[in-house]
């Protein structure tokens, strides 16, 4: 992500330090992770010390300081999904990708994450790949879904 684009995001929020989280969220969502150069730029422009930025990026789960895969898999482990077998779905996906939650493979193909509820509780277990929702997934079906991604 180039500095020009980061500046655009910052300008959109009028360079307000109180918008720090919103700015980081936008960079995260566009770039899928927060490179050190981006954080340096944000720190410089908003005049917020790096220590505070680090505190924020580690406190909130949405942020990642390491590159993410091309495809992000989110498995819901919220209560409704838990009682309907989300754990087994997660295990099937761990098997299929060789990843543990929070990890990304070396080819940067998949990142596996757990989330605590996607608000589709009626359809549990739920998984989301690149923003596409899949409801009522059985363990075998969940691994099947991944075959559609290159």
């Amino acid at each position: 992500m180039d500095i020009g684009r980061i500046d655009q995001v910052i300008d959109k929020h009028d360079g307000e330090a109180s918008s720090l989280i919103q700015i980081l969220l936008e960079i995260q969502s566009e770039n899928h992770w927060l490179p050190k150069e981006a954080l340096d730029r944000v720190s410089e422009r908003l005049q917020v010390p790096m220590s505070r930025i680090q505190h924020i990026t580690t406190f909130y789960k949405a942020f990642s300081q390491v590159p993410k895969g091309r495809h992000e898999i989110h498995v819901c482990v919220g209560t409704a999904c838990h009682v309907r077998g989300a754990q087994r779905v997660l295990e099937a996906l761990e098997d299929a990708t060789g990843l543990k939650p929070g990890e990304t493979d070396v080819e940067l193909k998949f990142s596996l994450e757990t989330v605590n509820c996607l608000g589709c509780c009626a359809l549990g277990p739920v998984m989301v790949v690149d923003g596409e929702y899949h409801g009522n997934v059985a363990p075998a079906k969940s691994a099947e879904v991944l075959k559609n991604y290159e």
Partner: protein
Amino acid sequence: MLMINSPAELEACRKDILSKRDPKKPCITLCSGSACHATGSEKVARAIELEVKNHGLDVEVDIRRTGCHGFCEKGPIVVIYPEGICYLKVQPEDVCEIISHTFKEKKIVERLLYCDPNTGEKATFEHDIPFYKNQERLVLGLNRKIDPKSFEDYMAVGGYQALSKALFEMTPEEVIGEVKGANLRGRGGAGFPSGLKWEMARNAPGDVKYVIVNCDEGDPGAYMDRSLMEGNPFAVLEGLMIGAYAIGAREGYVYVRQEYPLAVSNLAEAMKQATRHGLLGKNILGSGFDFTVKVHCGAGAFICGEETSLLMSLEGKAGEPNPRPPFPATKGLWGKPTNINNVETWANIPLVINKGAAAFSALGTEVSKGTKIFSLVGKVNNTGLVEVPMGIPLRDIIYKIGGGVPGGKKFKAVQTGGPSGGCIPEALLDIKVDFEELTKAGAMMGSGGMIVMDEDTCMVDISRYFLEFLSDESCGKCTPCREGIRRMLRILTDMTTGKGKEGDLELLEELAETTKGASLCALGKGSPNPVLSTMHYFREEYEAHIVHKRCPSLSCKELINYVIDPEKCKACGSCFRQCPAEAIHGGKKMIHEVIQEKCTKCGTCLEACPARFGAVKKISGEPVPAPLSEAQRTMA
């Protein structure tokens, strides 16, 4: 008409909109909330547009994409007006038939109707379906009538009447009086009386004040806030503006969790349109009242739903809670008086103002008025959002509306109140659901998650689950919460993995007391609740785990084994072929066997075994039968 500058113009605009609408004109509506996206409503929508065009019906038929109807289990849902014919689980390939049959030939497509699983009886209309019939959908009901991105739709169902009434016919004090009189209690957790809170903020000294919508909805298993924000953002905004007027605020914030992208975009669109019509901004309806709103996205932290943490997060900081008092009402955002309410609370405000306190509080119990939306999920037939009057028996929600537990399984408990709530057993199903009764039963109202559990759900595992969630989400600022949760979690993890010891229950109770008493915020204070309530009602399950290393629900992986009953195995080879761990000892005409050393306990064999054989089973707390010899395995 663009800018609306007075109550008279508002009504003229409404009249104009309604005059252009013919209630008899056919209209096809499709629900388009997040859950329906998951079941393919996007494709259905495209199919409808295409078919309507192909049949040359674009002028004669309206198409409306609405918010969530609540019956998510059966989505996507298509309702056809003016008749109100309700089709469930509609897929793109059904659309052609719907258009040609129902629109052209006025016939019903039987297979898409609701079918009662017990009687086999079909229901053509929404109001005949038991799931809807037993609800009172005062707040959620509008979702299915309007396109959340249409200002005109909201106007057509009476939108902004309450705001206009508040601004022109009531003083701020009268508005607060009405909310107090209605006895409206916060829907976000603690059930604090909203009118009192508003009054505190109004009376707090200061010129600058803020109002905030809490749409962080962190309780896993609850999603009514998402549905309201996605399905009817105008109503939430209208409620917020009435509150702002009452308190004396000119600025508001909506704090939405980032997991809800559709809620954010629908809200943004509603704000844009409201602004265009002068229903946000300066001098609203010519009343002299100014109001603007900003949207702030959460970044994935459960604690940010707690109001003091939410404020920290809004200020761009890490969302760590602060001790109260001072309450936000006196010292909130940027140190100014601030009023925070939950989405559902705000959505109730227009209702209170339109109906009046007396009519609003006619529904409900002595201490809890109006309706509450619950998210009925887990092991229940009709999962979805249900809105019921306060005081309805819990049993009615689960059986009359929810249709009971699927698959002939036995009901075990219902969990309410999220990670600070508790589990209610069968014996208490007849309690009336309101703030006090749920608390008395050891659970709480919380935000309205209701997770039904059946005989396969292990209560020890559930309490371990909640503690794991909370230990992840504890911000770590105070020691009792951070360490207390961690230690309780370790004990429970030991129990579920067969390492429980005598004395663990007493130790848990002791830790629970300390954590409850000494934690800084409600996350820590409430964290022992799931443990205490399950220990109270299901102590024997805990004891089985500790003493006999047995999981009575056959759920804790470390305590169970999969075995094949030699009497029942027909050597069909299903389990052998599907086992991902190659842990089945198979062979033609050989009784199959699970190789315990290789088994990962994924359960695939149990599902693979044809139901008519039912040879695979789980055992717990008993020895695994010795492997058979080759001779014993050979079938006759």
